[in-house]
């Protein structure tokens, strides 16, 4: 973390703002990074399960993966990557003092996230329509590897969708804060932390996308 090294002389120490005990930006960011680490490990458990079952059921995973809609998957990847770009632009805009542009960019991120979820809804609805969902008769009669593939597909993309929703709520709060001038061009740690969370949601999707849609 920046400036965490300790000065050596007592005189230097006395001048540190640190002695006043105020929450500084570096602490806030460190807390966020540690939290992101826990999120990565949360999905890490699922990735381990995925790897194990893929290794054990290669052929079934191959056949099941053929049934996913690569077009919607790619579209959603593009949408999510763009939303990360707008989130980053929002920070830069605010830092340079352009509050209106920052709000527009952050709002675009939230809207893109919403479009992502709408696409997800249609994708899942189509699968349900074809009788592919946990516990369905169609799925029960397939080889166990395919049941596992779709079980993991629903739980991993489902958990990711929950994170998209959480990210939208967090960013919406930050948006209100910018609107009310509580997050400003000099004090924007909340916006940075919100965007960090959003990038995490993005990164997880970048791994989910090839694992389910591209590897056949």
């Amino acid at each position: 973390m920046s400036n965490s090294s300790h000065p050596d002389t007592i005189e230097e120490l006395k001048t540190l703002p640190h002695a006043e005990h105020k929450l500084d930006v570096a602490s806030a960011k460190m807390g966020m990074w540690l939290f992101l680490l826990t999120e990565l490990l949360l999905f890490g458990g699922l990735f381990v399960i995925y790897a194990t079952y893929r290794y054990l059921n290669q052929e079934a995973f191959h056949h099941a993966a053929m049934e996913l809609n690569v077009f919607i998957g790619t579209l959603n990847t593009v949408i999510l990557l763009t939303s990360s770009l707008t989130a980053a632009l929002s920070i830069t805009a605010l830092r340079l003092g352009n509050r209106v542009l920052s709000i527009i960019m952050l709002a675009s991120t939230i809207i893109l996230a919403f479009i992502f979820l709408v696409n997800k809804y249609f994708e899942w609805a189509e699968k349900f329509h074809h009788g592919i969902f946990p516990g369905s008769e169609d799925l029960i009669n397939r080889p166990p590897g395919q049941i596992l593939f779709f079980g993991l597909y629903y739980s991993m993309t489902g958990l990711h969708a929950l994170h998209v929703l959480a990210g939208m709520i967090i960013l919406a709060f930050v948006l209100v804060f910018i609107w009310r001038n509580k997050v400003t061009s000099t004090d924007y740690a909340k916006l940075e932390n919100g965007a960090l969370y959003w990038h995490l949601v993005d990164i997880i999707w970048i791994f989910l996308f090839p694992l389910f849609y591209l590897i056949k």
Partner: protein
Amino acid sequence: MANHVIADNSVDFYKVKTKRSGIGAWIFSTDHKRIGILYLVALVSFFIVGAILGILMRLEMLSPGETIMGPQTYNSIFTLHGLIMIFLFVIPGIPPVFGNFFLPIMIGAKDVAFPKLNLMSWWLYVIGGIFAILSLFLKGGPIDTGWTFYVPYSLRTGTDVSWMIFAAFILGFSSILTGLNFITTIHRMRAPGMSFFKMPLFVWSLYATGWIQILATPIIGITILLVMVERLFGIGVFDPALGGDPILYQHLFWTYSHPAVYIMILPAMGVVSEIIATFSHRTIFGYKAIAISSLAIAFVGYFVWGHHMFTSGMSDTSRWIFSLLTFLVAIPSGVKIFNWVATMYKGSIEARTPFLLVMSFIFLFSIGGLTGLIVGSLSTDIHLHDTYFVVAHFHFVVFGGTGFIFFAALHYWFPKMFGKMYNEVVSKWSVAGMTLGFMMLYFPFFILGYMGMPRRYYDYLPEFTTWHIVSTVGSWILVGSILVLIWNLVRALKSKTTAEVNPWGGRTLEWTVPSPPPLENFEVIPIITGGPYDYHLLEQEQHNLVEEHK
């Protein structure tokens, strides 16, 4: 934290005027000291509930056959005893109570890095506890899977598994937030001059614990969440009928739950280092070795989970690697024990209550640790797996380790936390009773386990009767002594005694502030120049004092 309030540092934090009054002044307070006490009350309450369940189990085992309850009730009671003791008492354990209260003071800060998050983690703890209790009264009835939620039984049983799992998930979240808060606090809030190697060893142990909490807890979070999803939707990941692998569940479960053992014990080891240095009036021997060994235990602890599964079905290669790694954990643990003993050598030891509890701890924990090597060896574990031997082993390390040190910490810091002093005659006799009761209760388990008594059975063969009777009588002595110990403290709270600033002659920062501390802990943030255990300076200081008086 009182950022916007002008802090009144002339009175102790109990007497500071707050916005809310009554209980609201506590349950909505972001003061780390108040949150520590909130946790203390909650933890001790759950401990008493868990102990009552334990007493009931021992009563059932007093004689062969059905004594006071049937098999289904017994299954639920050992499950609840495990869940309450593990998830609501020892896993939170020392950090949220004593870490919350003393971490900021020991590093010379006014509060933790995120005071609101701190309050939130207490609320999550309480909500988790409420969910756990609620699950007992819902349709399915109390959970009967054992605290490990092993699949496939946890998928098939009609009892209310999902609610309890959700409770455990929330409790895990609370634990993560505490760890995250403490790590940030230690990195960012140390007083000027306090480098990492000038921190008290208790702070070091909280640091190592924080990392395990952050890195291990999410794994069990997702694992048990999947059990819940499996029960609700049948996704297949752990259900053998749908192609899932129950052994994979065990791997993921122990990937967290073994490091969790170190979440329980590391803070206790930190407290032991403080108490031994203070009551030996001697600089701790091998400060750096103790500090680094905490991190080493935290690190190696990640790679030994397989030793819970020697009989579950694993390749021989993985089994002996896990066994070897298990033996490696004994090295940093041994480093600590030897350093503590070396600290006491030629020290001027004062055998006060906290010190006696620590001596009990070293005795009990050594038995627990050494029998850990017996169950960590492949050949002996095949014989001893799932017997009372294992139950004895983990009660010696968890209860004899963390449990005893929880009470040691309570007695060590009680004067500072409450500004009162307890009756030491009563507390010392209680400690003696606790140790005796403990040995009577759990040592026969080693013998029973070796003879072949399996765990989690409500009934047994007649030849085991004698040892079961000894054990049950021991449980009465143990719980009786603990109740006297707690009653003694409650009586001290109501008494008119006052505690000095530094009743034990400790050298760490908490002994420089008033008992109880004021709201912002320090008048001025101290500037640290020396180490935490500079007892060798004591003589010089006293000499200077005498010179001044002349």
